[in-house]
């Protein structure tokens, strides 16, 4: 089977609010698939319909060839779930939690090596309530992996974590894929989606506005690169405008920003400066990111 998840025309309404408005997509086996978008875009509702924790109001969902509503228990044997909001009893110890969750499944992996891999081995006798945010998150990942699932759901995995813990999480996600599992994640951090995902669905107001690999999404935008540098004296900006690919030159005191497209933009700019004998420093370039794609597609600025 090539596809892990097939969603067609998924719809979910809460009272008057349309949370998910006719979403369709497929997730391939073995890929890291991401759903990005602002809070309230419908990501968690979508993921929970795919997991079988919520009943869709319209459309069809097939997860690992099963109907999540009809075959919910069978499906949960084969998936691993990290929920956006959940907890464990305060006084349960780390080892008790993994040991107990292992017993909920027909098939499970040894929990000692799992705790070791997630850096929780030393915390095995610690109460859940005494774990840090990052440790709790790693424990929830351990619980999501305890049944050796084919498909792992990670909902807002790194929200509330410091940058260092976030990077460690990313490595874990790559490790999960290394083991041949499919990963479905949601995030509202564009950078996270760009780093982690093979393919990304950008959602806004319950709809998918774009779906492709992060590179292709960025390229399809045709967005301009920016070359920024500082000059020490006045010079004729016309020389820069003449460089092939340059569309605009902005000057803000000593800071110059050159906008343009094409792979040879930076070379052309540097060349023009050297030819004109203009001393410059602090030259750097800025590439368009998923953030720019989101902004271009929705007209909204996403907030991290």
């Amino acid at each position, binding site marked *: 089977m090539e596809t892990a998840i097939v969603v067609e025309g998924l719809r979910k309404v809460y009272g008057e609010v349309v949370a998910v408005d006719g979403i369709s997509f497929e997730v391939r086996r073995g890929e890291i698939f991401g759903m990005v978008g602002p809070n309230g875009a419908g990501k968690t509702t979508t993921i929970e319909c795919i997991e079988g*924790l919520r009943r869709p109001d319209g459309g069809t969902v097939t997860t690992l060839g099963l109907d999540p509503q009809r075959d919910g228990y069978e499906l949960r044997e084969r998936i691993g779930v990290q*929920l956006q909001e959940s907890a464990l009893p305060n006084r349960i110890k780390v080892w008790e939690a993994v040991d107990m969750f292992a*017993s*909920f*499944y*027909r098939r499970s992996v040894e929990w000692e090596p799992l705790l070791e891999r997630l850096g929780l081995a030393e915390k095995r006798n610690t109460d859940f309530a005494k774990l840090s945010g990052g440790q709790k998150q790693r424990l929830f990942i351990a*619980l999501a992996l305890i049944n050796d699932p084919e498909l792992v759901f990670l909902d807002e995995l790194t929200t509330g974590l410091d940058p260092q813990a976030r990077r460690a999480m990313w490595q874990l996600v790559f490790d999960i894929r290394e083991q041949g599992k499919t990963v479905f994640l949601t995030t509202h951090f564009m950078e996270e989606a760009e780093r982690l995902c093979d393919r990304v669905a950008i959602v806004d107001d319950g709809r998918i506005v774009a779906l492709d690999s992060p590179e292709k999404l960025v390229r399809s935008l045709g967005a301009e690169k920016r070359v920024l540098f500082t000059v020490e004296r006045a010079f004729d900006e016309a020389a820069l405008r003449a460089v092939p690919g340059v569309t605009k030159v902005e000057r803000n005191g000593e800071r110059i920003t050159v906008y343009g497209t094409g792979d040879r933009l930076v070379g052309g700019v540097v060349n023009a400066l050297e030819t004109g004998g203009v001393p410059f420093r602090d030259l750097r370039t800025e590439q368009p990111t998923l953030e720019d794609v989101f902004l271009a597609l929705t007209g909204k600025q996403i907030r991290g």
Partner: protein
Amino acid sequence: MRGLRKLTWVEAKLFLREPAAAFFTLLFPLVMLFIFGSIYGNEPTDYFDGHGAVDVSVPAYIAMIIATVGLLSITINIAVYRENGILRRYRATPLRPQAILAASVLVNLVMTFLGGLLLILAARAVYGLHFEGNAVGVLLAFLLSALSFFALGFVIASVSPTARVAQVLGMVLFYPMLFLSGATIPWQELPEWLRRFSEFLPLTHVVTLLQGLWFGEPFGDHLKEVAVLLGVLVVGVLITVETFRWE
């Protein structure tokens, strides 16, 4: 099945790690026993129809334990599990909801039973507790009473929007029952009008049933109590099934 077994075992450990729950279920009844036992002793008196104060108090305190576990422990536990998202996490596994409820009932039943057993053993060792009934009958009455109060606890947890509300509701039901049902203050002490009011408290029927069977009265004399408690149990289960929420 393996899941239910592990869950029950872990829940039992968690119960004992929760100082308040463990204290009020297992130790507080002993404190009551020793305080009132040392004041009144256990000499048979006409006031208690020829029974001793401890003989009368032990089945009443067992009723108190049942109410504590049903209205406070279970209620708060289930409501907190729901509010914190613990039930949500369980639900994302193949574990059946029946297993979660069964584990909760099982653990709380065992703890209630242990609380009663400790009380009986202590009363027997220190005050020469008398038992004139049929142990199987008392055990059945205990089971019925406990299950019907657990059902009440589940109802409160299910209908309360938050854990805080569940806790308050549980207490609002618990305290009047504790003092007016005969569980702590002998009903002989209550004025007539209060006694009539206490007829409406389910715990009054637990106390009457347990005390009656304790002194050898047949079940036949207590059909009213059995009917009331069975009614609470059935209605409670139905309401819980209708209103239970995972989140």
